[in-house]
């Protein structure tokens, strides 16, 4: 047994289980250092390898196979002044002097039909890389998209035209979009899917629609005459403006432009208030108290299990027998027949009291075998009815409780011992 706890009134040495700030810091130092080390390592790795980002097609600084840094570098080495722009206004500003080539590679389809015409007639030579039909319509030039130049593998195409750069290139390996034209010069014709290069004259200025955008890419430039074509097209003039539209060119106002500039900070503030509220409500007032509770064993489990077993197996006879034995026992007790009395004694006693037929009582209490569950329920009802009838007759109604340990009639408290 436990030691009796007499008045605990002793001054107890204060053992404070909540760690101090210093201890928390010291304890978390190791893991903090590990986390910081991992972060630094990650940053170093990212700065070396570069983070995962979207590779922009024809990007002037892009070293990936889709980029075009090779062409731009070669052109710069050859003395061409390459100006890389990302916005329409910058582009137009860069085109103030004559002798310029304007390359427009709108891979993401950013420019709309009000911005495209502004590019027309500002440079001596306009090179469009794989323009969409929308762009062509907006520019109002005589070219139509015909179809994809290649299905999967790049095509080997022959110049067969009078464009000087194309003639020098002789053959190219092209992938991109084919174009058709009515008045313009077509080069590298691929038949039904259109030509890889279309040259037109609009208002006295040269416009080249380059359908084979792959020609400019780092990954493809060394194939066949690709390099010759790229350098020939873009290196004609002293200055090359390399314009790739960026989201800054989007003419429709963005969400942040439409809302006042305090909306974002307020949203952040709301988040922080939520966090603070979570900490306020969630901070535990001391640790949770653990208590070992005893198991709870229900005694009726056996009975329930047995009942389910009876019901599943349909053991009607067994069930009704159990009910009959219970009824007989209670009747015997009610009539004070003693524990030794047999079924026949009880039946005759019941017949005497109720005035019912002995044979019928026997059928009910012993003989009949229920053929269906309905019969079983009916038999059980009749047993109950018989019990309550006898109880009323004997005048024991209401005091019927066979398991009550009321004092036995004999002073010894024993009937059969």
């Amino acid at each position, binding site marked *: 047994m436990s030691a009796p706890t007499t008045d*605990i009134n002793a001054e107890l040495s204060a053992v404070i289980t909540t760690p101090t700030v210093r201890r928390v810091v010291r304890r978390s130092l190791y893991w903090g250092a590990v986390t910081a080390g991992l972060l630094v390592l990650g940053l170093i790795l990212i700065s070396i390898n570069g983070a995962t980002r979207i590779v922009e097609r024809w990007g002037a600084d892009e070293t990936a196979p889709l980029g075009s840094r090779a062409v731009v570098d070669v052109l710069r080495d050859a003395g061409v002044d390459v100006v890389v722009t990302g916005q329409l206004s910058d582009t137009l500003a860069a085109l103030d002097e004559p002798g310029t080539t304007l390359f427009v590679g709108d891979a993401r389809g950013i420019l709309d039909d009000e911005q495209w015409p502004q590019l027309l007639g500002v440079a001596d030579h306009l090179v469009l890389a794989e323009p969409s039909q929308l762009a062509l319509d907006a520019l109002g030039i005589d070219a139509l998209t015909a179809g994809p130049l290649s299905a999967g593998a790049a095509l080997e195409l022959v110049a067969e035209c009078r464009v000087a750069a194309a003639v020098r290139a002789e053959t190219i390996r092209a992938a991109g979009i084919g174009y058709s034209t009515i008045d313009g010069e077509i080069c590298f014709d691929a038949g039904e899917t259109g030509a890889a290069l279309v040259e037109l004259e609009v208002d006295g200025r040269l416009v080249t629609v380059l359908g084979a955008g792959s020609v400019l890419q780092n990954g493809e430039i060394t194939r066949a005459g690709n390099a010759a074509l790229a350098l020939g097209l873009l290196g004609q003039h002293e200055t090359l403006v390399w314009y790739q539209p960026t989201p800054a060119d989007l003419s429709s106002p963005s969400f942040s432009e439409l809302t006042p500039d305090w909306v974002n900070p307020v949203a952040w503030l709301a988040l922080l208030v939520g966090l603070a509220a979570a900490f306020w409500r969630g901070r535990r007032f001391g640790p949770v108290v653990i208590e070992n509770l005893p198991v709870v064993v229900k005694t009726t489990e056996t009975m329930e299990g047995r009942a389910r077993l009876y019901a599943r197996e349909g053991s009607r006879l067994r069930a009704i027998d159990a009910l009959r034995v219970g009824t007989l026992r209670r009747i015997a007790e009610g009539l004070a027949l003693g524990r030794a009395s047999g079924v026949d004694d009880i039946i005759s006693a019941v017949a005497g009291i109720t005035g019912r037929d002995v044979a019928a009582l026997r059928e009910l209490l012993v003989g009949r075998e229920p053929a269906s569950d309905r019969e079983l329920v009916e038999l059980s009802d009749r047993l109950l009815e018989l019990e309550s009838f006898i109880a009323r007759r004997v005048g024991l109604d209401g005091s019927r409780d066979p398991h009550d340990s009321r004092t036995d009639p004999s002073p010894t408290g024993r009937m059969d011992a």
Partner: protein
Amino acid sequence: MAITGWFVLLVAAGVVPVVALSTAMPAGLVLLGWLTLCIVLACLDLALAASPRALRLQRQTDSRVRLTDTARATLFVTNPSRRTLRGAIRDAWEPSAGATPKRQRLLVPPGERRAIVTQLTPWRRGERRTALVTVRSRGPLRLAERQASIRVPGAITVLPEFASRKHLPSRLARLRELDGRTSVMVRGQGTEFDSLREYVRGDDVRSIDWRATARRSGGPGPNGRAGQTLMVRTWRPERDRHVVVIVDSGRTAAARIADETRIDTAFESTLLLSALADRAGDRVDVAVYDRRVRGRVQGARGADLLAKLVETMAPIDPELIQTDYSAIPGLVRSMTTQRSLVVLCMPLESPGATRGLLTMLPQLTTRHLVLVAAVTDPALLEAAAQRENRAEVYRAAAAERALLDAQRVAAAVRRLGGDVVTGAPLDLPPAVADRYLAYKAAGRL
């Protein structure tokens, strides 16, 4: 550390400067500034709050309480620092200790002491403990709180309820009747001659001792007349008998019947029987047993007996092991040498589970008077009477079968020379007491 709702409101109030100043300066900067201000204020508040670590705590708890009664657990909080401590305190009692209130406000001026009183109304027997006291100290700005949990162990012993003590007065009255202390005199087998006294009206005329009357009348009467006083004999029941109670604390005692475990019912029966038998002048020895003796009270008498019993019983919970019945005769032999009333508080359920009990019973019945006190489940009776549909009829059949099993086991116990008393959890203790009185009246002890 903890923050208050005021701190959350303060952070939320940042929306005002952020919006109002958005024309003058970037809103992001205003937000950052506001947050910095909030944090600085909170840190300042923390620094100004009284330290809960410096508190001196003292505990004064009632040492024991009866189940369902209420005890007081007092915690003295002394603040030795120079700052007033404002905040809240929580005394972390086990849930079943029923502590209210769970957390309380705390205000201790510097250098003073305050008593924090928690009311304990336990709902489970045994030793209920508390280990930690958690204190939160709020800063003067009410923004942040310092928090510390301090280990101050405390415990209270929760004694068995002894709800059946309400049956004791009526049983004691019956005992006094038996004892001859009242005018009604019972003369039964095995009762002992107690004394002679003068006849008073109402006494049983059969108990007049004519011989003593004659002797008495031999001398001169009070006023010279002889033969005026009749003498009657009084009887008292046997005294100095031995009652041995064995309580089963095995796995079957863990079963819960009508919201009370079997072991609790057995404890109630034991307490009532012990109180009664002790008043009747009998010796009561109690052992709680499963495979080893979990608790034993021997040789105690009077008020000491009940106190020792409840102390012994308080921490005992049933073990989930099968009781070793074969060792019980040996246990009884070790507790008594004379013929005794041996009360076994054990379940009588199915013949299979009771085989061990039935096997060892003859060893006891040859020497002692054996009474098996078993709890019956009122739910079984209920289920047996409930027969509305098919499922319920099968359930009733299963219940009847269980009742029949219990009856068969009881009959087997009787055949082996033992006696059986059964009852629902609330009825069993008085039933056991009544059976004891019946034995006493019949002089069978």
